[in-house]
């Protein structure tokens, strides 16, 4: 019941602040999902995202003096609802945050017509990195292909030679889970390891005994997991049950949720997850959120969730979006920017060490830069390890070898553009190249 009252209280406050600022605001809606089978992983991220903007509004009165309205439109991870939200919001929205590969794929072709940037931090369609083809789409600071490359790099660092090794690729049987396959297959060929893809159906997420029996039979050296929502908890409990060595079990950044590991606690120690964000409670921004938002009772979060990886990631996501707004405001010398101006902002992000410190994000995100042709930034990330109670950094900053699959990015982007012909390429970029 406590949860319920908090939800209502937060909603009332959010509505009150949002309603008062109708006259002049930066409208950055979020296609959130706090319901449905994936809600468990959605809620902490959405809380982090919302709290960062509330903090900016409380502390600085918004960005450039204009308050931010980060209204949520609930999708329940359903593509249909997501598209409905998109259509409803596209009149006023500065940005689309689709929050699912499915919704991204639906909205992506419409961006050229509607001219609103898509911001899919760390998810979506990997070839979106190619800014010359995808003028309006951004998956900063890192994409799935970067993740796949970094994970293999990390294992190589541990094992030395990968020749003859066997990796099981446990993934959700869904566009999201299939995303990294092209890069993993290419790496398998280059480095000589064997890749065994093991799909988990959407209806089997909670009952993965067949998949883990297969893993037991195949005896892979490592299990790489592309999981989301209820699938992660299922996989981690099964791994513990079947006594798979946890230190050889590595997930993508969406499979590194504290609550999933809490299910197994100590027994999950050693589990790893690659991540481009890190929850640093000592960072100034977290202190400010605590002071201006949480202590004021403006947040839906709780102390335990706030220390988690996903909440911190939500904060980073909003911080990148906020920075894009700021960059655009400076460039065009106006506080109330348009979607097209925000697009320019996304393209000219410079998250240098100094800038990260100025934003108070110390140690929470690796430095990266975007440009006209590079919409991802390829920030790299850290390998996080579950020590039985929380995630800790288990590696230095890893950087993906983007060159090794840049051909793949180009060819996939070209293929996408061709099958969606006529597809307008970003001519400005092509000119500078």
């Amino acid at each position, binding site marked *: *019941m406590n*949860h319920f009252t908090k939800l209502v209280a937060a909603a009332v406050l959010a509505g009150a602040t949002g309603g008062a600022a109708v006259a002049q605001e930066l409208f950055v809606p979020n296609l959130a999902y706090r319901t*449905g*089978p994936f809600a468990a992983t959605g809620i902490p991220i959405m809380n982090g995202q919302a709290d960062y903007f509330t903090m900016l509004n409380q502390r600085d009165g918004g960005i450039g003096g204009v308050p931010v309205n980060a209204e949520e439109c609930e999708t329940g991870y359903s593509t249909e609802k997501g598209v409905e939200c998109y259509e409803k919001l596209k009149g006023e929205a500065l940005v689309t945050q689709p929050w699912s590969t499915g919704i991204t794929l639906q909205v992506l072709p419409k961006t050229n017509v509607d001219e609103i940037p898509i911001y899919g931090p760390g998810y979506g369609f990997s070839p979106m990195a190619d800014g010359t083809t995808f003028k309006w789409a951004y998956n900063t600071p890192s994409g799935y292909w970067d993740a796949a490359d970094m994970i293999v790099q990390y294992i190589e660092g541990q094992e030395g030679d990968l020749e003859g090794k066997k990796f099981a690729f446990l993934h959700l049987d869904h566009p999201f889970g299939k995303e990294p396959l092209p890069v993993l297959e290419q790496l398998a060929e280059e480095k000589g390891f064997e890749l065994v893809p093991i799909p988990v159906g959407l209806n089997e997420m*909670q009952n993965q005994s*067949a998949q883990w029996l297969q893993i037991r039979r195949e005896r892979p050296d490592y299990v790489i997991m592309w999981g989301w929502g209820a699938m992660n908890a299922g996989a981690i409990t099964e791994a513990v049950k079947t006594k798979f060595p946890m230190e050889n079990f590595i997930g993508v950044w969406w499979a590194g949720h504290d609550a999933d590991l809490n299910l197994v606690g100590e027994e999950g120690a050693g589990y790893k997850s690659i991540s481009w964000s890190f929850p640093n409670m000592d960072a100034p921004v977290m202190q400010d959120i605590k002071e201006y938002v949480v202590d004021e009772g403006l947040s839906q979060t709780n102390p335990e969730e706030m220390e988690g990886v996903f909440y911190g990631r939500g904060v980073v996501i909003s911080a990148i979006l906020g920075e894009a707004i700021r960059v655009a405001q400076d460039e065009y010398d106006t506080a109330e920017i348009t979607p097209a101006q925000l697009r320019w902002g996304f393209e000219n992000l410079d998250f240098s060490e100094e800038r990260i410190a100025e934003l108070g994000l110390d140690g929470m995100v690796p430095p990266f830069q975007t440009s006209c042709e590079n919409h991802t930034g390829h920030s790299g990330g850290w390998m996080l390890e579950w020590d039985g109670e929380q995630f800790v950094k288990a590696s230095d900053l890893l950087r993906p070898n983007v060159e090794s699959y840049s051909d793949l990015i180009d060819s996939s982007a070209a293929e996408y553009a061709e099958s969606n012909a006529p597809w307008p390429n970003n001519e400005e970029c092509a000119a500078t190249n």
Partner: protein
Amino acid sequence: MLRDIFITPFVDMVEAPDFLMQVLWEGLVSGVLYALIALGFVLIFRSSRILNFAQGIMVVFAALTLVGLHAMGLPAWIAVAATLAVMFVLAVTIERVVLRPLVGQPDIILFMATIGITLFLIGLGETIFGGENKVMITGELGIPTGDTVLEPFGGLLILQHLDITVVLVAVALVGALLAFLNYTRMGRAIRALGDDHQAALSVGISLQTIWVLVWFIAGIIALVTGIAWGARAGVSFALEVIAYKALPVLMLGGLESITGAIVGGLMIGVLEKIFEIYWGQPLLGGNTEAWFAFVLALIVLLFRPQGLFGERIIERV
């Protein structure tokens, strides 16, 4: 190709008997859980001709209530009792609000009504408890969590104590249920209603009481299933989809048969696991558990249209 279908799988089975035993055990445990859900369906179908689609969400709802009440500070066993009380209130409400006004409507209308109940309970559950994945209070309920490792044929066989407990509790529950149905007045009344509605009414059996009772028993089964599944993979709304798993069990076993639900559940649990491991994964790209049970049941139905243990369908003009 033919070799892959007809020879290799069996060679694999013989070569690694410990692995085969593990597969059988995993299948058996899933089968017990399928059987439990199917049992909830059968009880309600027998007494009221309703295919209760809401059984799946009742599992989630019961587990969520239990965890939620415990989080509010109730000791584990008192929370169980309180959850049972909630399930009873739910049974009475469903009988009063939904079933009574719909008496005598065609089967499909009642079926749709239970889907309506499902949606309502999903919304209600998310409003009250939120959508986060929750940890089942396994330890507090005194359910063992360790495992026993056996080494048959020099191999490896891992038996979770949790799974063993689930099997034992399920057996006890089914035993108690059968005793209740066979040796108590109320239980006999339920069976009488299942055999012949009008005859049962004419000897003074109250339809309303029985319906509340049956829905309540389905609620108890839902709670046990919810604890078992929740302990395995956490409690979240994604659990709701396991209701679909009970449907092929019902087809296979027959909609009215308690024996059918149990045998059907075990059969499907074991066979789908074996098919997935030895044929599905090597030959078909995996994930065949999504449909195998349905196709198996369909094939059986072609030969026995009322399921393995269903009552013979006699049609008159």
